[in-house]
C-alpha cells in the first residue's frame, strides 16, 4: 500500500500503521503519511481509477488499506454519489454555476459511509472483531450497517436525545445501541475513556481515527473526476469536528501533487450552525484555536462543541481565502427548503446549514458570479423530519371533483 506511517500533525513523530490516534509525546493527532513516488505515471493512475469499481475503492491508491484488490473487497462500499448541476439554485442566488455533491446517496444515506468503510476495513486488517463509535447519529447508522455487512459485532453510543429516525435506522441493523444521558461531547469523552480499556474494540473515530478520516478525501477525488478532472473554484462544506472539511482540502491537494489535476486547492468555506459554532467564532475572532461550547441547535449532526480538527479547519479556510460562517435555526430550515425546491434534493439539517451558508456568501458578495461552486450535502432529509414539519400547507379533500376544486379554488385564489 502507498500508506507508509502514522505521523503527528503537531510534532512530526512517526509511528507504525497501527490502531493509534494520538501522539504519545505531545497528544497531537496522528495522520496517515504516504509515499506517492510510485504514482509517477499519472496516465496509469488515472486509468486505474477509471477502470476501478463504481465506489470509493476506485481510489485505492490513495487510501491506507493493504488488500485485497478493490474489486474483491466485501462489506458495504460507499461513494460515487451524484454531482448534480444545480442551475435553478444558482439562478436563485445570482450565481453562474453551482453543483450539489449529494452524499445522501450512500448506503446509509450520509457521507459517514466513506469514513466507516475505510475504518472498518482497516480494523479487519488489524485483526479487530468489534466496531464501536461515538456518534451524533449518521455515524451510528453507518457503523451498525457496516458491522452487519462485515459480520463484526458493534457498539454504538449516541446522545439519548437523538432524532428518532436516526435511532431507528441504527437499531435495525442489530447493533448494541447505547443511549448516553448527555450531549455528544459527553458521549465522546466516555468513548475515549472506554477505548483505553477495550483494546479489542475498533472505535472508528477514536483509535481508528487516522484511517477513518482518510475516507473523507474521496469526496474531493469524486468532485474532481466528475468535473472531468477539473477543480471547482470554491467548495462549501459543513463543519462539526472539522475532519471532513480538512480532508476534502487534503484530497484536492493530493490530486494536484501527483498531477491528476492542475490548479490550486479551491477556496474552502466551512458552514456551522450558530447554536454550535466554535470554529466560526474562532475564525471571526482571528483565533487559531477553538473555545469549546455547549451546543444548542436543530443541526444535531453538527453539534460537536469541542471540535478535534477545529485548528486545522481554521488554517485551511485562511490559507485558501475562504471563511467559516454560521446560520441560525430559522435559516437552516429555510436552507433545507431552498435546496429541496430548486434541486429536488431533500437534505437533513446539516445540508440546510450548508445551503444557507452558500446563500449568505452569495448575498454578501463573497462569491464572484463567474465562480464554479460545489456544495457538499452530507446527509438525507428523511433522517430529520421534524425540521420540515409544518413548513408547508397541504390539502385534504373528499374523493370528488367538487371537493377538489373547492379546496383548490379557495387556496390558490390570487
Amino acid at each position: 500500500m502507498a500508506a507508509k506511517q502514522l505521523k503527528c500533525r503537531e510534532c512530526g513523530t512517526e509511528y507504525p500503521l497501527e490502531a493509534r490516534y494520538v501522539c504519545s509525546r505531545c497528544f497531537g493527532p496522528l495522520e496517515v503519511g504516504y509515499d506517492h513516488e510510485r504514482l509517477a505515471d499519472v496516465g496509469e493512475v488515472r486509468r486505474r481509477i477509471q477502470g476501478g469499481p463504481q465506489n470509493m475503492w476506485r481510489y485505492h491508491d490513495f487510501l491506507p488499506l493493504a488488500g485485497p484488490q478493490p474489486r474483491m473487497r466485501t462489506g458495504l462500499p460507499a461513494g460515487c454519489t451524484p454531482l448534480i448541476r444545480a442551475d435553478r439554485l444558482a439562478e436563485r442566488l445570482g450565481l453562474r454555476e453551482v453543483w450539489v455533491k449529494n452524499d445522501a446517496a450512500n448506503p446509509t444515506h450520509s457521507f459517514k459511509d466513506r469514513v466507516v468503510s475505510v475504518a472498518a476495513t482497516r480494523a479487519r486488517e488489524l485483526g479487530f472483531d468489534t466496531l464501536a463509535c461515538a456518534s451524533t447519529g449518521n455515524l451510528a447508522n453507518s457503523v451498525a450497517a457496516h458491522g452487519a455487512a462485515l459480520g463484526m459485532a458493534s457498539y454504538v453510543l449516541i446522545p439519548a436525545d437523538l432524532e428518532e429516525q436516526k435511532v431507528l435506522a441504527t437499531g435495525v441493523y442489530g447493533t448494541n445501541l447505547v443511549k448516553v444521558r448527555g450531549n455528544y461531547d459527553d458521549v465522546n469523552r466516555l468513548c475515549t475513556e472506554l477505548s483505553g480499556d477495550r483494546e479489542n474494540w475498533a472505535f472508528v473515530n477514536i483509535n481508528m481515527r487516522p484511517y477513518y478520516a482518510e475516507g473523507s478525501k474521496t469526496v474531493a477525488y469524486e468532485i474532481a473526476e466528475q468535473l472531468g478532472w477539473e477543480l471547482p473554484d470554491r467548495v462549501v462544506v459543513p463543519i462539526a469536528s472539522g475532519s471532513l472539511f480538512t480532508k476534502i482540502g487534503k484530497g484536492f491537494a493530493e490530486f494536484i501533487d501527483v498531477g491528476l489535476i492542475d490548479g490550486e486547492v479551491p477556496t474552502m468555506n466551512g458552514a456551522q450552525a450558530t447554536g454550535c459554532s466554535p470554529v466560526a467564532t474562532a475564525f471571526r475572532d482571528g483565533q487559531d484555536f477553538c473555545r469549546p461550547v455547549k451546543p444548542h441547535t436543530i443541526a444535531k449532526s453538527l453539534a460537536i462543541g469541542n471540535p478535534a480538527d477545529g485548528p486545522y479547519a481554521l488554517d485551511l479556510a485562511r490559507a485558501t481565502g475562504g471563511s467559516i460562517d454560521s446560520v441560525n435555526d430559522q435559516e437552516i430550515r429555510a436552507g433545507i427548503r431552498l435546496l429541496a425546491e430548486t434541486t429536488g434534493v431533500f437534505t437533513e439539517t446539516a445540508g440546510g446549514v450548508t445551503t444557507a451558508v452558500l446563500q449568505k456568501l452569495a448575498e454578501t458578495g463573497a462569491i464572484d458570479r463567474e465562480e464554479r461552486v460545489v456544495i457538499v450535502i452530507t446527509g438525507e432529509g428523511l433522517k430529520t423530519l421534524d425540521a420540515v414539519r409544518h413548513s408547508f400547507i397541504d390539502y385534504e379533500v373528499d374523493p370528488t371533483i367538487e371537493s377538489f376544486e373547492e379546496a383548490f379554488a379557495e387556496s390558490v385564489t390570487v
Partner: protein
Amino acid sequence: MAITVKLPTQLRDTVGGAPSVQAEGANVGEALESVFESHGELRDRLYQNGDLRRFVNVYLGGEDIRFLDGLQTALPDGAELTILPAVAGG
C-alpha cells in the same frame, strides 16, 4: 486535599503504568504540579509554555475544566480529575 488524577493509556508509561495517581492541591494547576514533582516527564507531555497543550482535555466530574476556571478551578477534597486526548470524535 487528596485528589485522584486518572491518566489515559498514552500517559501511563510516565508513572510506571498506573491508571491513576494521587495528587494534592486546592485547584487543578496545583494538583498537577504535585504530580509533576514525582513524575517530571508528565509536565512536558501535558504542558506547553506553562499552559495545557491544546490537544489535552482535563475533566472534573465529567466537565471540561475550560468550562470552569481552567487550571484555577477549585478542587474539593476527594475530587477526581480525568485527563484525555482531545483529538477523538467527529
